């Protein structure tokens, strides 16, 4: 049993790296994906007997490459496959992954693996792909998740994810997408898209319902895993570090987010003793490291806000003036309604519910009509201001916009208490 678990862990850890390298070598995403899957199948048969090799990634990559050559030789009827086969033959002959000398010779071939992973990240999160396609591509190719796992994680049919992946890969191929890290001039914009997709995966995991959690891949952990790789590859990008810090500091609260009965617990009501101190310590270190660089960005500021929360041993001790100041800074960079709503909530903590409501009501209500957090925040402040009838109406609107069952039951309970 533990062997099985080890294999799954190794596979998931190595899948992104192996696929990334194979795409470069084979020049084709589908071929690479199939070859890596085949190599994993062979490993699953052999490793229980032989043990996991010292360099499992190298073993998988070499085996996948050899398999791809075999297949291309068999099926090189199509022109492009023929070209790919040609490229492989030029590199050199078959290598034996269990042969030490061959593994060494393989170094040139696998060494640039770090760059390959970056290439793959930028390919999966290409701005010409829709965000849901970027997310599916990232989880499949970099995270090594199977299509059914991704589908279950997002509670959508398998066919939907499969189709998303096929379309995305086809679009990239039809458009001659290059397998390169973007040029310096484009890098900030492109990196922003990658970070956005990773954050989307994280928040999906964070807000996902808990009931069937055992059946679902933990998207938050997957997002953290891929973001760690990104930070390793781009240690000088403060926003990437900021995103990792934000994820860790948010994830640290996870043990306290749900009560024993599975109901949602607000930040203010959470048992802070249950927060994960190891994650908080790491998150803090990362926040400090980014701040020293003095190139503030949205993820770094949000991480700093999460760090201020983590600093407070009890909710009452929260340094709200610092949080409001950080939201001001965030709003200067991202002057949108989402930030404004969060800032208003923080302001209400500092100066009372009336001050927060004043800010919320100054926002463009039409544009926020479909934004659930606006109505939920407003409802809460209305309760605290004693305006209960309005609060109930705001809860109704928030409930109408909430699909997550845990959040729904939380809001229903709040509404019940507010109802005069």
């Amino acid at each position: 049993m533990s062997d099985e678990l080890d294999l799954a862990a190794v596979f998931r850890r190595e899948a992104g790296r192996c696929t990334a390298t194979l795409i470069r070598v084979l020049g084709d995403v589908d071929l690479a994906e199939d070859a890596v899957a085949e190599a994993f199948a062979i490993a699953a048969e052999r490793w229980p007997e032989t043990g996991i090799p010292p360099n499992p990634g190298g073993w998988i990559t070499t085996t996948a490459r050899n398999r791809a050559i075999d297949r291309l030789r068999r099926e090189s009827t199509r022109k492009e496959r023929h070209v790919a086969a040609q490229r492989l033959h030029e590199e050199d002959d078959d290598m034996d992954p269990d042969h030490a000398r061959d593994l060494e010779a393989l170094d040139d071939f696998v060494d640039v693996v770090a760059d390959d992973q970056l290439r793959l990240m930028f390919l999966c999160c290409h701005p010409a792909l829709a965000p849901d396609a970027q997310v599916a591509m990232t989880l499949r190719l970099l995270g090594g998740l199977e299509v059914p796992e991704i589908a279950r994680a997002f509670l959508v049919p398998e066919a939907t994810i499969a189709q998303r992946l096929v379309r995305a890969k086809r679009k990239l191929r039809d458009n001659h997408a290059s397998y390169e890290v973007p040029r310096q001039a484009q890098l900030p914009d492109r990196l922003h898209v990658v970070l956005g997709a990773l954050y989307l995966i994280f928040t999906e995991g964070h807000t996902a319902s808990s009931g069937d959690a055992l059946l679902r891949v933990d998207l938050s952990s997957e997002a953290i895993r891929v973001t760690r790789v990104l930070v390793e590859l781009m240690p000088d990008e403060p926003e990437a570090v900021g995103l990792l810090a934000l994820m860790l500091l948010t994830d640290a609260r996870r043990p306290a987010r749900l009560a024993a009965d599975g109901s949602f617990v607000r930040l203010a009501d959470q048992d802070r003793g249950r927060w994960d101190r190891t994650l908080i310590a790491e998150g803090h270190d990362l926040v400090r490291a980014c701040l020293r660089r003095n190139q503030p960005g949205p993820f770094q500021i949000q991480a700093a806000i999460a760090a201020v929360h983590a600093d407070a041993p009890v909710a009452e001790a929260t340094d709200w003036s610092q949080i409001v100041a950080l939201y001001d800074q965030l709003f200067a960079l991202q002057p949108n309604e989402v930030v404004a709503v969060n800032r208003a909530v923080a302001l209400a903590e500092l100066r009372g519910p009336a001050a927060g409501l004043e800010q919320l009501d100054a926002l463009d209500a039409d544009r926020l009509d479909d934004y659930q957090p606006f109505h939920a925040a407003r409802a809460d402040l209305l309760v605290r201001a004693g305006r209960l009838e309005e609060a109930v109406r705001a809860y109704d609107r928030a409930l109408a916009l909430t699909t997550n069952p845990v959040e729904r039951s939380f809001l229903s309970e709040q509404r019940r208490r507010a109802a005069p």
Partner: protein
Amino acid sequence: MPQFLLSVWHDEEYEVDFTTEEFQRVGQKVGAFNEELTEAGAWVFGAGLMPASSATVLRPSKEGVSMTDGPYAETKEQMGGFWIIEAPDMDTALDWAQRASNACEGPVELRPMQPEE
């Protein structure tokens, strides 16, 4: 080298009138963009189109080819012009499309052409 179609889209009521300040400005920017394409060796072809109302659609049928007055797609948005460019990869093509969109001050669709066999 791969070729791409960049098509320019605007409202069907769009009237080209070079006496206005707007068209003087856009015309100048598009001219400069065309020069950039040519200098980079990316230019294959490009042209602006007469209004969509000047179009005729022809359809094959058993009785011969029929004709209808007006554009094929009866939508508010019509193609107003296009370029065919050569670019080594998608990102380069997207970069050109971005510049095209800035020059025309409107949406531009990028679409890869089928490769020549």
